[in-house]
């Protein structure tokens, strides 16, 4: 036997379940008066710097049905590519932009719609720049461990072509699963948990 490394194991994940709204968006599901508002419900204010955009996300299961009980959290850099986090070492992010959002699927349509700003580019280790992206974390009933993916922007073709994360995707026909299509200032992003168009998820 060698010495003990004295490390702990990460707590096992369990599904967020069908009632995740009670804990994370209680006002959304009609529990009012405990918290003044749901955290992460809005990202931008008048003071936020950057190009305003709208994002529409839907999450589909393996039968092609839209999930009406999913919850998506978003984490993104500000317009200059800086994260509003103590672990950000490259500079101070826009104080009027937290960068974090939390959005439940609409219980009727399954749609998630939010306003944000287009993030700036962020470096990959070694200094090459990644294309602008929004980091997504998806939980729901039936998902045992939160799923990580990224939303890239369809009108950033040149940057996407140089992106070192997208470059890691061996099956090139899967790259478009990470690219939101632009129509006016609305980006639409469909996440497929399974099937022909299964979205690329990350082991990060």
């Amino acid at each position, binding site marked *: 036997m060698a010495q003990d490394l*004295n*490390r*702990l*194991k*990460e*707590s*096992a*994940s*369990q*599904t*967020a379940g*069908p*009632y*995740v709204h*009670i*804990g*994370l968006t*209680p006002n959304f*599901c*009609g*529990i009012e*008066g*405990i*918290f003044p508002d749901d*955290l992460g419900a809005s990202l931008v204010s008048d003071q936020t710097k950057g190009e305003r955009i709208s994002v529409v996300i839907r999450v589909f*299961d*393996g039968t092609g049905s839209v999930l009406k*009980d999913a919850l998506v959290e978003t*984490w993104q*850099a500000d317009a200059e590519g800086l*994260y*509003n*986090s*103590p*672990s*950000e070492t490259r500079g101070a992010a826009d104080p009027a932009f*937290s960068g974090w959002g939390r959005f439940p699927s609409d219980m009727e349509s399954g749609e998630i719609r939010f306003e944000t700003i287009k993030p700036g580019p*962020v*470096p*990959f*280790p*070694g*200094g090459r720049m*990644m294309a602008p*992206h929004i*980091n997504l*974390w998806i939980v729901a*009933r*039936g*998902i*045992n*461990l939160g799923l*990580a993916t990224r939303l890239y922007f369809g009108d950033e073709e040149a940057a996407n072509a140089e992106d070192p994360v997208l470059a*890691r995707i061996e099956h090139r026909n899967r790259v478009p699963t990470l690219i939101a299509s632009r129509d006016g200032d609305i980006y639409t992003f469909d996440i497929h*948990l*399974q099937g022909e168009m299964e*979205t690329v*998820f*990350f082991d*990060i």
Partner: protein
Amino acid sequence: MKNQRPETGGFFQRDRAWQPPALTPLYKTSVVRSPQKAPIAFPHTPSEITGPTFGHGILGALDNDLTLNHARSGESAIGPRIIVYGRVLDENARPVPNVLVEFWQANAGGRYRHKKDGYLAPLDPNFGGCGRTITDEDGNYSFRTIMPGAYPWPNGINDWRPAHIHFSVFGHGFVQRLITQMYFEGDPMIWKCPIVGTIPDRRAIEGLIAALDMEATVPMDARAYKFDIVLRGRRSTLFENRMEGN
């Protein structure tokens, strides 16, 4: 360890043999909601290493007391009164200070305050079912609540969830984000539950079972359960990796 840079390293690789797999057929909903292709790995960038922060200023006085935070004045929720306390640690066994911990649960009869829950057990008008707190400098958190009830759920024809409290925890990096459930020491229902059974390793399940702590109990008031949560550990940057990026 003064030769470490603070809080800027990447995180340890997640142990996917320890965590539940995506496809767990005995938990039927996972069958069409589980990705079937391998997730793709890449070295951590600022997108993974950074994460949101929440100030203690967001907390209301009753956010960590589910017995009172939805109760009429002078009343409180029905059920066995308990205190849940513990620490948020990382895999290096270091405390994770100043992180948001959120929790939600059914009432003492096993009923959720949610329009999708149609269980026979009644709602308690004095119980909402959610709370939140932020860890202190040593990673400690605590809250008051009532013991949730077990409840049946549509999976098999006779599947029941053990009594449990749902937890959502932030770390300092977004990839530490974790949702899990806390179970109660001695509950025989734990080992019959298909959702618990998604976790392949018995030791990992035992890590989700809170221990009854009579020493932390408040006499004539509330029993205490201790529940520590472990988030992914951060790599210390004792030596820089100069290999990346050609």
